[in-house]
């Protein structure tokens, strides 16, 4: 065993100091929260039960940065998405992140759906997304020449964008960390007590004290409240979404995000490009009890493939690269469950169901305002440090294009040896294959590890909780 390092993100005891704000859960919401509170001058610590951050709902989504054109008018969700979009736009370049303004089309495939477009258009304008407009089948064909000619009409949403769903939250947390926040991984919260204005939370790595707690435990948000507060303010029923990822060659078949006309329950099956250069189809919407089982199933996947081919006929000759599923932390209500409990110095941030990637920065601002309303003040950081993220987007200038990157380990995704070694080191060391994939994209390409698993097993041999291999 390694000698215990003080306050290491991944092992040893937790901090003895009393922090101002303790965040439970390092999903995209927790990461954005840690960043906002740190920048506002609070002493922040964040606890994550998994070995790597983004291990819950945030591990798999469609990676679309929404404008909020279709969010419920007047909702907190809408306000957070709009503010989240605005702040992302403001900070992403400086942090080395990406945003591809590919736009979206809500496509009507039946006359019923055509009838619904008016309403969506009106709602978008009510929501303040004024550049949304109705377009004809012909205009749609010009914009998306590979789309099936069965499309009848559409709404164009020019500013819907795609982003890197992992690098962004990593960058939020890295900035918090760089400016003083403490990150504790493998530290699951199991209980706590509130005494004389101070919280003491017990975790799998010992106890930690804080003045305020913000619960961002996503899929486990209600369970954390039951364990710590005795009762939960909301109940989570995970809603699974499965996806199919097609070969990179397929990404040239669409330009924008192809959205269906939504139903009351879900926005439906989307065809979208990723910033990594793939084309994906999904998600499904399936309620389930398990909070961790993100299984794919053959029938659902086949239906997605058929749906994709119906919309983009040329997809039929495209190989399939990957399948994945994500779990939405859905609650009884569609609206976000952001519930402050001033008497208990506790703020619940739950039920961030299907727009958390877009809303995270806005949610963090909103929660900070609620915190200020509790009468709390800090001195804003004057010149916060801005660490630069490692870019993974296909069109960006990647590490393999620079000097001295070592060998290319993953040939399909062009992941360099240097990128892997860096990701395995502090400050947020990858300690599972899943974590390393999110930080580097290794094995996520068309061969799915055929060529690189062996090298990777060697490179990661003393790093993972669940190692890839053992010595013979």
């Amino acid at each position, binding site marked *: 065993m390694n000698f215990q390092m003080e306050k290491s993100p991944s092992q040893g005891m937790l901090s003895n100091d009393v922090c101002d704000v303790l965040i439970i859960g390092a999903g995209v919401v927790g990461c954005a929260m840690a960043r906002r509170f740190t920048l506002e001058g609070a002493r922040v610590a964040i606890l994550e039960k998994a070995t790597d951050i983004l291990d819950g709902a945030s591990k798999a989504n469609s990676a679309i940065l929404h404008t909020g054109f279709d969010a419920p008018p007047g909702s907190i969700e809408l306000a957070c998405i709009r503010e989240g979009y605005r702040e992302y736009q403001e900070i992403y370049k400086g942090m080395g992140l990406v945003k591809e303004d590919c736009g979206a089309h809500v496509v009507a495939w039946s006359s019923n759906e055509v009838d619904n477009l008016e309403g969506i258009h009106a709602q978008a304008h009510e929501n303040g997304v004024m550049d949304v407009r109705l377009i004809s089948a012909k205009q749609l064909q010009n914009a998306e020449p590979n789309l099936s000619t069965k499309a009848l009409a559409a709404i164009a949403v020019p500013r819907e964008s795609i982003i890197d769903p992992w690098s962004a939250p990593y960058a939020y947390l890295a900035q918090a960390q760089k400016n003083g926040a403490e990150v504790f991984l493998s530290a699951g919260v199991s209980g706590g007590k509130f005494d004389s204005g101070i919280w003491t939370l017990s975790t799998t790595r010992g106890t930690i004290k804080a003045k305020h707690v913000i619960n961002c435990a996503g899929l486990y948000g209600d369970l954390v409240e039951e364990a710590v507060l005795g009762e939960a303010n909301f109940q989570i029923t995970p809603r699974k979404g499965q996806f199919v990822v097609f070969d990179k060659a397929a990404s040239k078949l669409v330009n924008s995000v192809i959205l269906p006309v939504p139903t009351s329950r879900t926005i439906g099956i989307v065809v979208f490009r990723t910033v990594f250069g793939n084309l994906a189809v999904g998600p499904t919407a399936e309620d389930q009890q398990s909070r961790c089982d993100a299984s794919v199933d053959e029938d659902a*996947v086949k239906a997605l493939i058929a749906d994709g081919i119906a919309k983009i006929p040329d997809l039929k000759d495209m190989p399939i690269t990957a399948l994945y599923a994500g779990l939405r932390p859905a609650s009884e209500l569609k609206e976000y469950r952001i519930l402050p409990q001033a008497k208990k110095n506790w703020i619940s941030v739950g039920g961030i169901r299907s727009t958390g990637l877009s809303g995270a920065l806005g949610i963090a601002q909103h929660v900070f305002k609620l915190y200020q309303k509790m009468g709390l003040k800090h001195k804003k950081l004057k010149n916060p440090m801005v660490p630069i993220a490692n870019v993974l987007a296909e069109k960006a200038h990647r590490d393999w294009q620079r*000097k001295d990157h070592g060998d290319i380990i993953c040939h399909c995704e062009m992941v360099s040896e240097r990128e892997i070694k860096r990701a395995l080191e502090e400050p947020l060391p990858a300690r599972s294959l899943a974590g390393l994939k999110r930080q580097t994209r290794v094995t996520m390409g068309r061969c799915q590890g055929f060529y690189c698993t*062996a090298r990777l097993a060697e490179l990661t041999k003393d790093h993972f909780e669940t190692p890839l291999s053992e*010595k013979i």
Partner: protein
Amino acid sequence: MGKAFNNDEAPIDVAVIGGGPAGLSAATTLKQAGIARVVVFEREPEAGGIPRHCGHYPFGMREFKWPLKGPAYAAKLVARAKRAGVEFSLNTSVVEANRSGLLRVVTSAGPKSLSAKRVIYATGVRETPRSARLVSGPRVQGVLNTGALQSMVYLEGRRPFKRPVIIGTELVAFSAIMTCAHAGMKPVAMIEQNTSVTARWPTALFPWINNIPLLMETKLVEIKGGDRVREIVVRNGKGETRTIECDGVILTGQFVPEASLGRMGHIKVDPATRGPSVDQWGRCSDPTYFATGNLLRPVETAGRSWQEGKQTGLWVAADLAGKLPHYEQKAHPVRVEPTLIYAMPQRIYRNNLDAQDVAGMTHVQLRVVKPIKGELIASIGEHVIWRKNISAKPERRIEVPIAELDTSTSSNNQGEIVFSLVSQA
């Protein structure tokens, strides 16, 4: 004698993408034919291709008349190429193959562009991963293709599990069994979807196979587990499911050509073979590119790929000397009906060839999905141009002599040749 590639020297005559058996033999042949600069670009630290990862017999019967283990075989091919004067650029990935032989390559020093008069595209095959097989279940560690398992065991001295299930019975499943035996892993079962074992097993293997329960007509339907594989669910021909406890899954075979350079660029890829679409000299849709070896189609042995590479070397040398028919001439496209999986080459020149032209592939290669007896028919439009009764199996190539195809019925020299296999009950 063999030397490392230096970009500053004279222009490259032939660039070879991929230093497996096919690329190596093509390069060696070209040097022996007197071509000045032949450079093999290989993204791994050493050339040799898949055999370098296969620490077992038998390789090299065709080339060296003696059974060798994969790595020794690969080393011999590399040594032979070096002796012939082939240059090597190792740890070099070709990341773009552009028009007219313009390549983009990456080494640790970063990317650079180069060009060659001709390019030989020889990137081989890989196995179908879990995702593309649409297997249900959560993502768990311990699901590997044979190729990944072999390089882990033979190159890194490591093993990913101890009691795996082996899926499939193509010849490569034999490699999986050998690799398990070598690394102290005990397969708990071997599963085949079809009614018979796909490969003709080498008799030397029976002692090993006898210790592994073989489940026929059984399909893998789900993989279960937490962080790692815990069990799999299989379904038999009667539709009954059962679970098998195991700590790993080896997904063997279902080979696909590694044609991503083509697919991402301008070289046409055939959706049937999933390799580049070629004529009988292996010329791609951009005639500065020639495909060879297993990239052409799934799948042949190392020895056969080596043989193909050798021919490709001769054809490329002939092309450099102006002895192949002009690419723009009329050719017959080739296609198959659904009982067959593919036909290669996908484009055939007939009737109008010059006497001085070098002959290319002598046969069209075809494959079936499952064992079938029937009449194989080639036709152009209404006209049957060739027919024969055959008995075919998925692992065996079917060969149709190009010289026997009566293309005279196609007055314009470009009628589509369609192969179909009509089953006899």
